[in-house]
């Protein structure tokens, strides 16, 4: 039963992915392309966040730290060396090593700190990275940031669009497999009851670190793509706003669903786009941020478990088959 459902889900996703793959060849709007690229990048970032929040139950307020490391690694490599594919790969490697290392250390701290305290610690760590980016001016040019060239291949927006799409789908599949693997199930157990997981014979810390590193590295990759899409990087990549974006996208879409992170990213980016467009039509929308805020509030009221979370509960309720209850991931 569940398997069939799962397959249908995968089928839908594949169809959508194929559609997105063909899009740039049939539809000429560059603007849409860029918007979608942005959506893909943030989807990756939000999914990496969902792995922590939704599957392992770790709240981090400092996820921007990994995003920023990725963005700066790419920027600095491209600025300092020739923008070739080799250098690009080197930058990717550096990002993976750096984010892996930092997320490993940060993951170790989950041992010591619970909930709010861990969240605030990550907030302060990412704050320190922000200061570092500010102060290490010979490398980063301070908060104004710097522009850089990117490898030939990525200059073409269609190519880059496709790259981001492919990476996003790959990350989705990897995380899907990761969370549905025996290891992933243990992560959910940790989310539910850490102490009991321990006494079942699972080394909780190892899992938390695994999730943290996985999530950190993927966030770093999102940062890389972000930097390439802008060909510019400044300290804003370490800002709280970036973390909040991931948080919002994940929650709006539905925590612990992965696909929710993608939908959340799409929704926020498009809502943003439309609202700012509306600002040109009517003065009321010049303060479009108010409407944005109202959307958040309405989402909580009408989709308390995020869009995907709530919709899947509804459809499950409609079927009314208490005997074969689908496993539910709860938000919170």
């Amino acid at each position, binding site marked *: 039963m569940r*398997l069939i459902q799962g397959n249908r889900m995968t089928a839908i996703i594949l169809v959508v992915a194929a559609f997105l793959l063909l899009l740039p060849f049939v539809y000429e709007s560059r603007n849409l392309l860029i918007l979608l690229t942005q959506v893909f990048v943030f989807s990756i970032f939000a999914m990496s966040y969902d792995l922590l929040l939704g599957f392992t139950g770790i709240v981090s307020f400092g996820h921007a730290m990994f995003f920023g490391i990725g963005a700066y690694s790419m920027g600095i490599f491209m600025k300092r060396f020739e923008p070739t594919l080799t250098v690009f790969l080197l930058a990717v490697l550096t990002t993976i090593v750096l984010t892996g290392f930092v997320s490993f250390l940060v993951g170790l701290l989950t041992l010591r700190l619970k909930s709010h305290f861990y969240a605030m610690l990550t907030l302060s760590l990412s704050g320190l990275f922000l200061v570092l980016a500010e102060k290490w001016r010979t490398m980063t040019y301070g908060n104004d940031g710097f522009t850089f060239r990117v490898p030939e291949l990525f200059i073409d927006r269609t190519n880059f669009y496709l790259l981001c799409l492919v990476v996003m789908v790959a990350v989705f599949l990897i995380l899907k497999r990761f969370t549905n*693997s025996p290891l992933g199930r243990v992560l*959910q157990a940790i989310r539910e009851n850490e*102490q009991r*997981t321990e006494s*079942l014979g699972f080394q909780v810390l190892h899992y938390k670190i695994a999730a943290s590193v996985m999530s950190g590295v993927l966030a770093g990759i999102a940062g890389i793509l972000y930097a390439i899409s802008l060909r510019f990087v400044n300290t804003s990549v370490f800002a709280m706003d970036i973390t909040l974006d991931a948080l919002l996208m994940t929650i709006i879409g539905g925590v612990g669903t992965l696909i929710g992170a993608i939908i959340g990213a799409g929704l926020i980016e498009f809502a943003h786009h439309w609202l700012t467009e509306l600002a040109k039509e009517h003065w009321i929308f010049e303060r479009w941020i108010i409407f944005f805020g109202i959307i958040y509030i309405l989402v909580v009221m009408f989709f308390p478990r995020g869009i995907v979370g709530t919709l899947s509960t509804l459809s499950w309720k409609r079927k009314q088959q208490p005997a074969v*209850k689908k496993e539910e991931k709860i938000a919170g």
Partner: protein
Amino acid sequence: MSSLIETTDLSITFGGHTAVDAVSISVPEKHFKSIIGPNGAGKTTFFNLLSGQLTPTQGKIYYRGKDITKFSPTNRTRAGIGRSFQITNVFPNLTVLENVRLAVQSQAGIRYQMLFHYKKYRTFEEKALEWLRLVLLDDKKGSLASNLAHGEKRKLEIAMLLALETEVLLLDEPTAGMSLEEVPAILEVIKRIKEQGNRTIILIEHKMDMILDLSDSVMVLFNGRLLADGTPEEIMKNETVQSAYLGGLLDE
């Protein structure tokens, strides 16, 4: 007699209050031992020390002659000491089946596998179902654990422990809150495991009839100290136990 679990001088103090006070016991292999004692005597705390939830302030714990005092709960479970909890302690937002499946998975040693779908391990699910059937909970396999009635949670708790198939079973009041009607079934399970003869069981209970029925030996904790350790008959005759623990109940 070779002892499987041995404690020497085991003590723990919480800010001035010594909850377990220099307890030295030795439990032979395939033995069934019960622990009784007034509320707050330190029984659960003693379990917490054995299973690694707490670290003793003093004393040592040996398992098969090996010092495991510094082992983490995880490693003790892996070494073969499993436990159930007095206050129900399950994964509230996972299904009953998934709760047990996780225990089966741990027992099978599949811990870091991240490349395959968990459904690939179909046998885990079947095994989990078997355990649920054993504790009469299979009809609830799809419910979220948080939605179970209290007694049902107790059964789940037991199923999870059994699924670990550890050599040592530490049972902390497994039947508290279980209905009169169903206690026998659970007792039956415990008895059967005992009869299979390859497990060592330590049981905390306040139900005397059960203790008398099952135990090879009974130890009595009192204010953290080991007051007595002996056969059920000996213990029942002990006057301190009668006056301070049992009260007049058995008179009826």
